[in-house]
């Protein structure tokens, strides 16, 4: 019954599924299929986090799944042009190359690069294949959120927070650097409910985002200075005796040292450093100190600076000293990994370049420095790359370097759905499955459900899921049959379901049958995270003072404000503008932007500039400008904004280089202070009219 073959029927059929993109919301939705085609997308009310339906990107799956721009056949680049070839030929060429590079330079001359393009348990099959191959070079770290995850782990021991719908119980909501209206639209539902009940909403962001339109207060600090703002706020809270002494006494480690470290903080000086008037810092302290329960929601953008981990620790300290942890309506809301029940090593620890299991499988380079390290690495040098679920040339820092590194390779295989910047560099493109063409199990880092992303149609054209590609390639390479059987599922729907069942059977309330009908709450879910006040830290308490922080990352054991490498005051000439590259509602990283329906709303990239900075440079609305620094330049249209903090400009990330707009043409590869994250938001530029 598991095999869904719908070629010979015209009946419409409705399936429950879930969106596997790298996004907080991870919406459940219903998909209606007719004649092996996606026909309609409808809301799935059974997910309490996303009851009203999926966002605009999710709705555009209708176009994405049926797009005639999709890559449906293996393509080989011959004299600069992509020509359709057979699977057999593609796999023969690839296996020849793999054998050749392995025998001549060793298996580490091949780079296996995968990113967050599609989540699911089956992604582990890729690693299994490359282990069988004999190991490869791969990346460690992550482009997204590790500094904040590690900061949270150091402080609370785990990354989890209250269920999304608990937010409506908060009396004070602080959106610090997060813009859910665009990145997690369903979070705006409980925020609006809380506000209707009288809750206050404070937004801290250099930009005036759609999330701040209904806020009571919008504080606009200089990017990268959030830590000093938080520490100054903490100092006032403690001075005014607003802190929760009983909570601190029982559950907090290192409070006295923290208080002592605040002695250095001068409120006037802090105000100057972060560009927020003292009156606003005092008001923030009054709010956080007096209004309970508070949910502090920290975004991911602000921890993509060189001081990101320490900044996150400073913010988290505000929740800790006011006792806003483990209670209804009160939590530190960063990442909720409670639905990742199948992971043996959870993020951020999985990002460390650990030796144990993976040696000698991995020779790892940091993803934050991909281009630079690819060029640098020796013994053996990189000769070939295999890229799947990612578009590193657009999305990793310093596009120019990344592109240079890819161009230097002798052979590139890219598994893709569309002709991305990275696909353009491939020697062979293999057509990638979309989310409707293979079942997989996904979790969410925000909502607490385990979900099944169901196979609802047969793959289009000659598309093969990655598991099948690896299976066929393993056969071609002549791997040991038994090893293949243990590591790679056979290309049959039943084999995939058996593979997934292997995981599900560990939990009695999870089964494929159940997940096919609806999302299921994660086993062991704590609706109110840390309600038991148990913290998996060395001291068993919430650690404001962390010895691990020193030991692993060599940073201050206490939350501290660290000056940025690039964007700090005094070093600003000749690039005085801080470039923010946030996510937009219109894309998930570099996905969706190529679709006609998304282009109808967002046709070309723009740089958003404050009216003040524009005037200084003689720039008017829609003028073509050059955004540049010593790493690169972008020619783009200007859009004026009267509410963005002057000194900041914005180019949302995700536009492809070939569309002329990836901000990574300007960014630099740097690691964050902890967690092996990527500090590409520390990025200064200048703009001129052309």
């Amino acid at each position: 019954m598991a095999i869904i073959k719908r070629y010979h029927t015209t009946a419409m059929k409705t399936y429950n599924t879930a969106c596997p993109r790298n996004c907080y919301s991870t919406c459940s939705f219903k998909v209606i299929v007719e004649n092996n085609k996606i026909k309609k997308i409808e809301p799935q009310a059974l997910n309490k986090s996303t009851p009203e339906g999926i966002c605009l990107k999710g709705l555009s799956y209708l176009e994405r799944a049926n797009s005639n721009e999709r890559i449906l056949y293996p393509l080989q680049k011959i004299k600069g042009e992509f020509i359709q070839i057979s699977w057999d030929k593609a796999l023969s060429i690839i296996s020849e190359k793999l054998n050749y590079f392995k025998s001549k330079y060793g298996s580490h001359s091949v780079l296996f690069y995968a990113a967050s393009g599609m989540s699911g348990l089956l992604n582990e099959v890729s690693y299994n294949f490359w282990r069988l191959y004999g190991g490869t070079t791969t990346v460690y770290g992550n482009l997204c959120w590790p500094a904040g995850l590690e900061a949270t782990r150091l402080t609370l021991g785990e990354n989890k927070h209250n269920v999304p719908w608990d937010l409506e119980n908060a009396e004070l909501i602080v959106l610090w650097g997060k813009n859910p209206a665009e990145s997690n639209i369903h979070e705006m539902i409980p925020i609006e409910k809380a506000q209707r009940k009288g809750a206050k909403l404070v937004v801290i962001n250099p930009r005036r985002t759609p999330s701040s339109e209904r806020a009571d207060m919008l504080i606009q600090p200089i990017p990268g200075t959030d830590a000093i703002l938080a520490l100054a706020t903490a100092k006032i809270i403690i001075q005014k005796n607003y802190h929760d002494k009983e909570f601190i006494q029982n559950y907090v480690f290192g409070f006295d040292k923290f208080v002592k470290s605040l002695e250095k903080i001068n409120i006037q000086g802090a105000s100057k450093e972060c560009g927020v008037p003292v009156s606003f810092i005092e008001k923030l302290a009054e709010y956080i100190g007096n209004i309970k329960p508070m949910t502090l929601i920290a975004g991911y953008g602000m921890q993509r600076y060189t001081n990101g981990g320490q900044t996150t620790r400073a913010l988290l300290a505000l929740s800790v000293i006011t006792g806003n942890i483990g209670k209804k309506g009160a939590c530190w809301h960063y990442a909720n990994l409670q639905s990742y029940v199948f992971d043996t090593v959870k993020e951020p620890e999985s990002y460390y370049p650990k030796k144990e299991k993976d040696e000698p499988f991995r020779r790892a380079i940091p993803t934050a420095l991909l281009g630079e390290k690819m060029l640098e690495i020796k013994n053996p040098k990189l000769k070939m790359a295999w890229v799947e679920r990612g578009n590193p040339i657009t999305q990793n820092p310093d596009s120019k370097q990344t592109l240079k590194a890819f161009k230097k390779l002798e052979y590139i295989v890219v598994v893709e759905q569309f002709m991305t910047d990275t696909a353009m560099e491939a020697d062979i493109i293999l057509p990638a499955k979309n989310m409707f063409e293979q079942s997989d199990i996904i979790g969410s880092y925000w909502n607490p459900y385990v979900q099944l992303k169901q196979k609802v149609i047969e793959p289009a054209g000659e598309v093969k899921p990655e598991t099948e590609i690896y299976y066929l390639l393993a056969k071609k390479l002549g791997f040991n049959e038994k090893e293949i059987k243990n590591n790679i599922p056979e290309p049959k729907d039943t084999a995939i379901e058996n593979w997934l069942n292997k995981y599900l059977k560990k939990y009695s309330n999870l089964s494929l049958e159940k997940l096919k009908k609806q999302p299921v709450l994660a086993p062991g879910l704590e609706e109110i995270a840390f309600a038991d006040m148990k913290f998996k830290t060395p001291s068993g308490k919430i650690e404001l003072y962390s010895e691990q922080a020193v030991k692993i990352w060599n940073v201050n054991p206490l939350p501290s404000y660290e000056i940025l490498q690039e964007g700090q005051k005094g070093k600003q000439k000749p690039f005085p503008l801080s470039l923010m590259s946030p996510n937009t509602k219109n894309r998930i990283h570099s996905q969706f932007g190529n679709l006609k329906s998304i282009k109808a709303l967002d046709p070309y990239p723009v740089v958003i500039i404050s009216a003040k900075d524009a005037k200084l440079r003689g720039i008017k609305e829609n003028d073509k400008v050059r955004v540049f620094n010593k790493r690169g330049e972008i020619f783009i249209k200007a859009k004026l904004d009267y509410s963005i903090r002057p000194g900041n400009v914005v180019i949302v990330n995700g536009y492809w280089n070939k569309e002329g707009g990836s901000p990574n043409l300007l960014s630099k590869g740097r690691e964050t202070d902890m967690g092996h994250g990527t500090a590409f938001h520390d990025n200064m530029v200048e703009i001129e009219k052309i």
Partner: protein
Amino acid sequence: MSANYFIFDENKCVGCEACVIACINENGFQHPETWRNVHLSNPQKRPDLPLFYLSMSCNHCENAVCMDNCPALAYSRSIITGAVLHHQEACIGCQYCTWHCPYDAPKYNPFAGVIEKCNFCEARLVNHQEPACASLCPTGALNFSFDEIDKHEIKSNLETPINTYPSIIIKETIKEKAPETDKSLFSGTEISGHKAKQKPKITAKKEWALVVFTLIISVMTAISAQDILNKAELKTKLLFLALGAMAAFLSSLHLGKPLRAWRALLNVKKSWLSREILFFTVYYLLILIDLLIIQIPKPFIILTALLLILSIDKLYQPAQLYWTTKIHSAQLLFLSLSYYLMSSKLYWLLLIIMMFRLYLFAKQSLKAGFKNKFKLNLRILRIASIFFTGILLILSYSYPLIITVFSIGEIIDRILFYDELEVATINRS
């Protein structure tokens, strides 16, 4: 009482535009304009003002001004759902409905040459399914009700020039102020108005064919009201008729579907555009018969000419909403009258009329402002033309020269008239 209406809650809308994609999914790709739009009250984000989002397409009004004014009867109302439906196969692409709809619901597709618009997801409504946009709004801001409602009872907080009794309820805004911010960050930034510049719906450049058409009509009616023509040679008469034919041809040029121009006559009952076409046709036929076949009594011709002029002026009524005065110096009645007085050599009357028009012109100019250098020069030229016409008349220069100098002013006035036409749009309200 009628059923089916949208319910929009500004407090929940964050401007995500999922409703727009939902509409595309349901009704097909829409280019160059989407049928549904999310409007921003403060697109430049002035720090002292709040920003609200408003998702809107067609409100399927009880008083459907698009339908009433469509000359080609391309609109109808669905008996089952109350939807105001547009029929592309009947549309002549005159865009007159876009002048009337205060919600910008009809969208002109220049590639197809016709209007497109929201159909209330009629097919879904019939099956008791909400329109796609309302059913797929991810925050629950856009909703729908199948209930009966008296639209006259709805207190609309959409400021529109006339109440069209739209099928939409907009919920009360809870938080009306912008978030408190550090305003000193923005000191020294001058802010001119809080609306981003938007393309005007009507411009002289876009509607050049209409500028020429109406100018020809004013000259034609003036001359035919005078008795000059009957005394003229056949050659002049034929030239005159050719001019009229050209006017008709030009006016069909601005249509998206010129071959369907005849359909413009279908809604004489309600649409001033249909009436204009009707009176023009009658007037032209009368002149034709009068000049070539049999003499028609003068009062008939003058009456139809007046009706034609009246209907042309009436046609631009929706654009009058934002004028400072109810009348415009370049209204066709004035143009025709001035040409008539000029050709009849009734100069004292002409002087009075021109002085009055000059007064109107000055008022209009003050409202328009003097920022645009090019337009300022045009205005100066227009005033100069009146002045020089007077001097040339006093000095008894040759008639053709006087007419030319006079006409320069008239042409400029009419061109500016089109640039000053402003119609109700959602961004204004």
